[in-house]
């Protein structure tokens, strides 16, 4: 494809690739290397997060059961091999924090966005490559800090037993306040519960580092997209992935500072005895608290959810952009309603800033503002519905090629519908009263921001693996992975809605123990459903090993990828797989058409590259 590219001036202007191993692979400023680093970080995190959920499902399905391997893995936290209340809660807190920050925020944006945004707009790199490198390494530090909050004890024991004596970390478990870290539970320190001392300090530090890294990343994304587009790459010729990454970056830019502010206030309450969130007259664990007065616990929730709701869209928007991109590519059809899709992304991003209160209907905030938040919340369903309709419109009349990335993109649409539509229940103040903080909510947000977003990541991985690593992934294994995962996640999360209706509360280490007859009697009917969900979770987790095998096998023995194996149109498919250090070999590409010109009448093939100067030019918009 290089022959189509028009150099802007006679000389070719190249960046030499770094030669030393460290500059090339570790402290690289190449957006592609950084993208892959982010992607691996997310891959590691997702398996950690999944491992934690496996332990949680063990406990929920068979509460109080003894598991020998737990004694080995967590000698102090699970010394009897059973999962205690605090241990369950620290699993839960780590699962949420790892998944939300280090998987859902990291892979779609930091991973794929970093690798492909510059290439898709025709740039040689991000606007600020050194900043980009710093973003990654700060994220990495944040992950290390978070992991240390949870594994410090196990690591100390491991070293003591097998290598040399280190001071035992004591009974360290991670923080137990959930990923939302509601104050004052999170602000009162160890007296409010095990893990709330050092655990919370490490947790907040990790989140603060993550905020800073995300802000640097967002700054980079926005500047790159505004300033570094190739000649001819007008805004309405951008692939929808770029619009999604851009909007995500704007959301991150405006919401992470608020979380950072909340984190700073929390750490001050926790360690410097200030009273931002801690009210006066507290009596905790048998002792009167005298050093705090007048703080507002609800203020934490406002600050947290002002960030937390846009965060949901930070997780899902890149998946939405990618789904549009992949559906069009493999349906061999232009995206239906490109402009509507762009505006819908904006609308979701904008409305996302005005709905945070729907997490707080029963928190004690003003019942009038609850109504206002509820009304705005349901309107956010409109742009979401527009996206769904347009995806169906894109498939309608297509010539669908059922590759693995396409299957995951179709799965994304299905899960987006399943997970999104239950928001209609939760967004209504009245119905939220019985459903709030139950498994209905757990099922809802896992389907939409957990699994749908993960399907977006799988789609992206199968789609772009050839470009990133120069090898094709195995299609047979990929399809098997899709089938098992799609069936599995539905089997896990749809029954959870029923549990929630029955009143099964979230964040309980045990609801009803059929062996001892302890717990909530009204939930005794839920035991078979709970066990079914646990078993479905084990099967689905096991199915992810297929993905891991496919990755390793394809990397080593996969078929070599050509420049454009999917016959797709955007700029990344005009350069070799994997791309050279400076992407376009110093020659600025020139863009002549929109990104989804498939099956153009009168064209010689069923797709026209964005750089194709010849062939009918049909502008988007009508």
């Amino acid at each position, binding site marked *: 494809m290089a022959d189509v590219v028009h150099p*802007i*001036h006679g*000389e070719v*202007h190249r*960046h*030499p690739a*770094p030669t030393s191993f460290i*500059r090339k692979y570790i402290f690289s*400023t190449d957006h592609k290397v950084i993208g892959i680093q982010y992607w691996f970080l997310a891959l590691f995190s997702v398996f950690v997060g999944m491992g934690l959920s496996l332990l949680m499902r063990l406990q929920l399905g068979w509460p109080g059961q003894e598991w020998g391997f737990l004694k080995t893995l967590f000698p102090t936290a699970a010394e009897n091999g059973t999962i205690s209340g605090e241990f369950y809660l620290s699993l839960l807190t780590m699962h949420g924090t790892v998944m939300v920050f280090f998987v859902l925020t990291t892979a779609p944006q930091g991973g794929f966005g970093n690798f492909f945004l510059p290439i898709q707009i025709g740039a*040689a*790199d991000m*606007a*600020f*490559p*050194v*900043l980009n490198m*710093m973003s990654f390494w700060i994220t990495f530090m944040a992950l290390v800090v978070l992991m240390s909050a949870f594994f410090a004890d196990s690591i100390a024991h491991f070293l003591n037993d097998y290598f040399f004596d280190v001071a035992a970390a004591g009974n360290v478990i991670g923080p137990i306040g959930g990923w939302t870290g509601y104050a004052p539970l999170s602000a009162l320190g160890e007296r409010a519960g095990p893990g709330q001392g050092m655990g919370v300090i490490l947790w907040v530090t990790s989140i603060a580092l993550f905020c800073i890294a995300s*802000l*640097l990343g*967002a*700054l*980079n994304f*926005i*500047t790159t997209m*505004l*300033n*570094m587009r190739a000649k001819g790459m007008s805004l309405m010729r951008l692939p929808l992935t770029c619009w999604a990454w851009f909007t995500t970056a704007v959301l991150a*830019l*405006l*919401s*992470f*500072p*608020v979380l*950072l*502010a*909340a984190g*700073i*206030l929390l750490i*001050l309450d926790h360690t*410097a*005895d*200030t*009273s*931002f969130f801690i*009210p*006066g007259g507290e009596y905790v664990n048998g002792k009167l608290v005298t*050093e705090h*007065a*007048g*703080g*507002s616990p*609800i*203020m934490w929730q*406002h*600050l947290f959810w*002002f960030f937390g709701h846009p965060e949901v869209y930070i997780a899902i928007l890149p998946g939405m952009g990618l789904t549009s991109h992949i559906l069009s590519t493999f349906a061999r059809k232009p995206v239906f309603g490109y402009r509507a899709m762009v505006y819908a992304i904006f609308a979701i991003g904008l409305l996302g800033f005005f709905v945070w209160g729907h997490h707080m209907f029963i928190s004690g905030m003003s019942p009038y503002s609850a109504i206002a938040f509820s009304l705005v919340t349901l309107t956010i369903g409109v742009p979401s519905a527009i996206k769904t309709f347009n995806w169906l419109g894109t498939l309608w009349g297509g010539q669908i090629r059922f590759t693995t990335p396409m299957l995951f993109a179709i799965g994304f649409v299905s899960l987006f519908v399943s997970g999104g539509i239950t928001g209609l229940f939760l967004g209504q103040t009245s119905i939220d009263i019985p459903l709030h903080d139950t498994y209905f909510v757990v099922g809802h947000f896992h389907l939409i921001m957990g699994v749908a977003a993960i399907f977006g990541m799988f789609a992206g991985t199968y789609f772009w693996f050839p470009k990133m690593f120069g090898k094709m992934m195995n299609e047979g294994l990929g399809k098997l992975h899709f089938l098992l995962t799609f069936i599995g996640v539905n089997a896990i999360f749809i029954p959870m809605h029923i549990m929630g209706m029955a009143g099964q509360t979230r964040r309980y280490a045990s609801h009803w123990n059929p062996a001892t007859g302890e717990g909530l009697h009204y939930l005794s009917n839920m035991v078979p459903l709970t066990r079914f969900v646990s078993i479905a979770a084990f099967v689905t987790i096991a199915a992810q090993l297929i993905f891991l095998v496919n990755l390793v096998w394809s990397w080593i023995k996969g078929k070599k990828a050509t420049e454009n194996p999917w016959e797709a149109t955007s700029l990344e498919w005009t350069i070799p797989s994997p791309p050279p250090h400076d992407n376009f070999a110093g020659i*600025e590409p020139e863009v002549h058409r929109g990104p989804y010109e498939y099956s153009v009448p009168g064209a010689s093939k069923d797709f026209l590259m964005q750089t194709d100067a010849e062939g009918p030019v049909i502008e988007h918009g009508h």
Partner: protein
Amino acid sequence: MSTTVTRDAGVKPGIGAGGGQKDPGGSDPFEPPQGDSKDWPPGFSREDAIEPEKYRIGMWVGLASILMLFIALTSAYIVRGVPALSGGDSDWIPLAMPRILWVNTAVLLLSSVSIELARRALKKNEYDRFKGWISLTTLFGASFLVGQLIAWRQLAAQGVFINSHPHSSFFYLLTSLHGVHLLGGVIALAYVTVAALRMRIGFKRRTAVDVTSIYWHFMDGLWIYLFGLLFFFR
């Protein structure tokens, strides 16, 4: 002749300017060439054209996030300061303002004037005046920080610490966050000043001066806002 802009080297985050690289061909083009790429001089690439612009965009984008940080803290300040909003009993004791804050404010305002004078001087290629004004700005910036430290010491001497009461908590928090951001500005100014004293003001460093002055004015405005919020908002 071809310019190799190794972007790996020394790009300072936030203030952005290539560190220690050669300016194209030893000549010192003051402004990036305008117009179509065909008219660009040899050795001047697309990247050279987008460089200054991207630092400006990056700075405005960065300022947006800093603004959000302080907006979030402002909302916390208002919620905490108005008993009806926080629901708790009122434990708000207004802080006695350390007098030196007036001096600090004046110094910071002056620094905004001097950085503007420096920028104008540079635009007219009046190097000597530029050097003078930019050095003075750096000095003003550093004095402001010292002044803030003195204000802290004065409060500490009265026995007012971060955990004394909500107003003191916010005072220490907001002044230190502003101070950290301002320190970044002082470092950027120091960098530009050193470059100026060594006569190395190519058009890239002119971008650094421009971008730093945007940041500096913002920090100045932010301080005026915080000063008003902390001591005159009721």
